[in-house]
């Protein structure tokens, strides 16, 4: 797939595409999922669609359809659904799909009442067909797919720099879904009004180039409030109005909340594409939590990873720890990261993005992923810390606004962060990282606690790999994008080369917080790989990723050499996996920052896991030192070693020794994980405290999307990250219970 195919970002990978990214015989082969409880209608529709040369899958139950969609993200282009179904209301399904997968949905019904049709429109259906459906009506349904993709692409272009777009595109190429095309347009998506759900153009509301000025700055605090509200209402049932009421923030409009919610869900979705949150189970939780202790202590935080980003010096990670939110340092400038001794090798810079999931640990709120500033983090990560990411949440995971760019991990890079046990290959696609930084997005990771659960399989070698669970939660927005991207990139890239440690970076980004589009792409890719790689191995090493308890941050990815206690927080799971050579330092603020009470910037929990840059392609997962992020506490000895290609940051933290070893090759990989890769996988942001870095214990399989790391690692990115298990569960991290949270999905 050529990089520019992204334009179409067609999910169907592998097919030759035309300029728009469609296969030459388009619309033939369009993958349609039909949901209708009436067997007669279903049969007829099936036949009709096949006559149109579409690729049809039928389903008579909405729940099954949803599961199918979740399981195989990117496997469908379009959904046709009946309105009245016994097990689930068609509109509800529509909402879910829109938020989680962002696919075009067409409703059908024998009911042609105006109200019903209106309902379809307001819920975001692309079209509404009256039964009996005729062939002619079905022949043209492909237009909705094209339109959506174009819009996304447009957003992409608008939102980021061209470069970012490219990256995104490339990332998208990775088989991401069209919907993820706009990572960059995360912020744009943010603005998407409810009414125009249908992938309409997301106007670029904010400054296209960076999220610097979103209409509403979703600061970590705000985001945390948001997440708290969402969780209270239950993420599936949360409606903007109620969220708004619960949040009770003056000046915040329902629309703001709505768009943010949408992103959040997408983010979650992305993080947790295959709903693998399970992957990251526990091991991470513990770890992440632990690590996360107060972000401040990033020690382990992948500051290294952050450092990777160069921009974000571990300090930022540290800073994250220390400051309750703004760990600005971590992200970008990780000043505090010092501890980690980040040596951000160039690549590591990206790590900075890894806002240590550890941050989460930070007493749960510390993980601020550099939210707002995350944007800067991002940039930082990317190499230029644009603005010190205040909340270090932004490591790479800029989930917030539009970090979309973030995740455009260029497929080329795959950084596998080797997380303990598994290396998390964070293939950070450069683009992602770049995007992140570029975007300047505000990563207001507001408290999203996206926990990226990174499951790092315990590899014998790496233990440390903390699947940085991606703190993605935090900025879910950003991270998601990033995470997704990275993840996806990595994942895809990595193809499971993963080395031993499979870091399953499961970033469970808060549901719905997925970055719009970009995530999609990323997540898709990531997921693909991640799932494979990650979690494969046993998450045995269960990295305590997110365990807030002390383990803060472990984001260590990959190979943490010594068994270092998985740093609890893999918050950073967000590791952008694809640190592929990319230099971008995605701000991952994924730190699963469990929303630290407020402004948590994204705690980068996941320290850029993707730092893996070093990893060579294929070989191991780059060790993204994921763990690093989490370690806030101890003095992270983050030595980022940049071994030829890997940046290994050895963050040593007492709890979190994030060590990402560079897997394989070097053996020592230092935990680069900085980037908390936001593995987009289900980042479940749990409102409550940072719960969990939810890094799923799984080690990141290298694919830690550490955007930031990616940056650093960029060059080297190896595709290491193959399999970051995107499931990051970010369950509202509460630093305290990150551990537990880690798994929460």
């Amino acid at each position, binding site marked *: 797939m050529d990089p520019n195919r992204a334009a179409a970002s067609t999910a169907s990978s592998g097919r030759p595409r035309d300029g728009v990214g469609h296969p030459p015989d388009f619309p033939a082969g369009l993958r349609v999922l039909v949901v209708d*409880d*009436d*067997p*007669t*209608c279903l*049969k*007829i529709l099936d*036949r*009709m669609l096949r*006559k149109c040369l579409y690729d049809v899958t039928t389903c008579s139950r909405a729940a099954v359809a949803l599961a199918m969609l979740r399981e195989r993200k990117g496997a469908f282009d379009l959904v046709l659904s*009946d309105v*009245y179904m016994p097990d689930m209301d068609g509109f509800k399904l529509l909402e879910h799909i829109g938020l989680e997968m962002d696919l075009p949905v067409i409703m059908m*019904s*024998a*009911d042609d009442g105006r109200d019903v049709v209106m309902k379809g429109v307001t819920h975001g259906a692309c079209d509404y067909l009256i*039964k*009996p*459906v*005729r*062939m002619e009506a079905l022949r043209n349904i492909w237009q909705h797919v094209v339109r959506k993709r174009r819009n996304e692409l447009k957003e992409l272009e608008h939102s980021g720099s061209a470069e970012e777009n490219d990256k995104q595109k490339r990332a998208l190429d990775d088989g991401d879904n069209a919907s993820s095309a706009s990572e960059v347009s995360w912020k744009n998506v943010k603005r998407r009004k409810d009414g125009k759900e249908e992938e309409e153009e997301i106007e670029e509301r904010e400054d296209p180039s960076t999220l610097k000025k979103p209409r509403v700055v979703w600061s970590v605090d705000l985001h945390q409030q948001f997440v708290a509200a969402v969780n209270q209402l239950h993420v599936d049932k949360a409606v903007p109005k109620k969220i708004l009421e619960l949040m009770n923030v003056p000046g915040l409009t329902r629309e703001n909340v709505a768009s943010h919610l949408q992103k959040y869900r997408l983010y979650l979705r992305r993080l947790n594409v295959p709903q693998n949150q399970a992957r990251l189970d526990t091991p991470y939780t513990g770890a992440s939590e632990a690590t996360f202790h107060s972000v401040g202590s990033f020690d382990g935080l992948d500051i290294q990873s952050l450092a990777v980003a160069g921009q974000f010096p571990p300090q930022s990670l540290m800073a994250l720890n220390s400051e309750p939110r703004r760990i600005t340092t971590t992200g970008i400038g990780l000043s505090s990261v010092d501890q980690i001794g980040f040596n951000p090798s160039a690549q590591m810079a990206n790590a900075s993005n890894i806002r240590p999931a550890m941050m989460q640990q930070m007493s749960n709120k510390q993980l601020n992923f550099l939210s707002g500033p995350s944007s800067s983090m991002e940039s930082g990560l990317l190499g230029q810390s644009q603005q010190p990411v205040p909340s270090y949440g932004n490591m790479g995971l800029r989930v917030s606004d539009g970090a979309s760019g973030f995740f455009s991990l260029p497929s080329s890079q795959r950084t596998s962060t080797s997380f303990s046990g598994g290396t998390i290959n964070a293939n950070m696609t450069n683009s992602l990282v770049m995007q992140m930084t570029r975007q300047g997005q505000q990563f207001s990771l507001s408290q999203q606690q996206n926990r990226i659960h990174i499951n790092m399989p315990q590899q014998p070698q790496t233990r440390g790999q903390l699947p940085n669970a991606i703190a993605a939660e935090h900025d879910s927005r950003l991270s998601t994008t990033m995470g997704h991207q990275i993840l996806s990139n990595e994942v895809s890239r990595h193809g499971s080369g993963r080395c031993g440690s499979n870091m399953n970076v499961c970033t469970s980004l808060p549901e719905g917080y997925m970055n719009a589009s970009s995530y999609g792409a990323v997540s898709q890719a990531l997921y693909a790989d991640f799932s494979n790689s990650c979690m494969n191995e046993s998450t045995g090493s269960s990295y305590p990723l997110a365990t807030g308890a002390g383990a803060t941050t472990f984001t260590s990815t990959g190979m943490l050499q010594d068994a270092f206690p998985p740093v609890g927080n893999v918050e950073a799971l967000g590791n952008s996996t694809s640190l592929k050579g990319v230099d971008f330092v995605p701000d991952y603020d994924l730190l699963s920052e469990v929303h630290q009470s407020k402004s948590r910037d994204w705690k980068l929990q996941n320290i850029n896991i993707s730092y893996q840059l070093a990893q060579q392609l294929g070989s191991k997962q780059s060790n993204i030192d994921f763990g690093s992020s989490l370690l806030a506490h101890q003095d992270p000895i983050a030595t980022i070693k940049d071994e030829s290609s890997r940046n290994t940051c050895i963050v040593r933290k007492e709890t979190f020794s994030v060590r990402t070893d560079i897997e394989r090759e070097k053996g020592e990989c230092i935990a680069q994980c900085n980037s908390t890769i936001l593995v987009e996988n289900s980042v479940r942001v749990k409102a409550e405290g940072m719960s969990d870095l939810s890094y799923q214990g799984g080690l990141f399989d290298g694919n830690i999307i550490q955007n930031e790391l990616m940056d650093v690692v960029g060059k080297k990115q190896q595709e290491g990250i193959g399999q970051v298990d995107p499931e990051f569960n970010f369950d509202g991290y509460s630093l305290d219970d990150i551990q537990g949270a880690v798994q929460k999905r």
Partner: protein
Amino acid sequence: MEYSNLRRQAAYMKKSLFDQGYLDEQFYQLEELQDDVSPNFVEEVVTLFFRDSARLISNIEQALDKCPQEFSKLNAYVHQLKGSSSSIGASRVKNECTLFRQYCDEENLEGCLKSFQKMKREHAVLRQKLESYFQLLRQVGPAEKATRPSM
């Protein structure tokens, strides 16, 4: 000869079904979907319809017996029936469903009952007619599906 007679008969039967309003346009759509890949598509769908609609009808019947006041429930059942009957072009059945729903909306139990009876009848009649039709078609020969009106 025989064959063409049969064909003519089949064609005639079909035409009268349309003329009498038992079938409508949608039935043509079904026929269009039939081809070499799915040579018996129409019959399959129709069979499926009758099986499924029989179940629905019995549900409605039960509901009318046990909890006739639950109009929304009745409404939901009938809506389903309406959807599937319209999909195969069972026009009369569909119309009766519409009427039934109206009665439900008005909460007119009596109207519902009456309408339901009528619906059942229409359903039975259609079933019978289509069965004969398909039988005839089978005699005509599979390859020769005289199902298409002069398209």
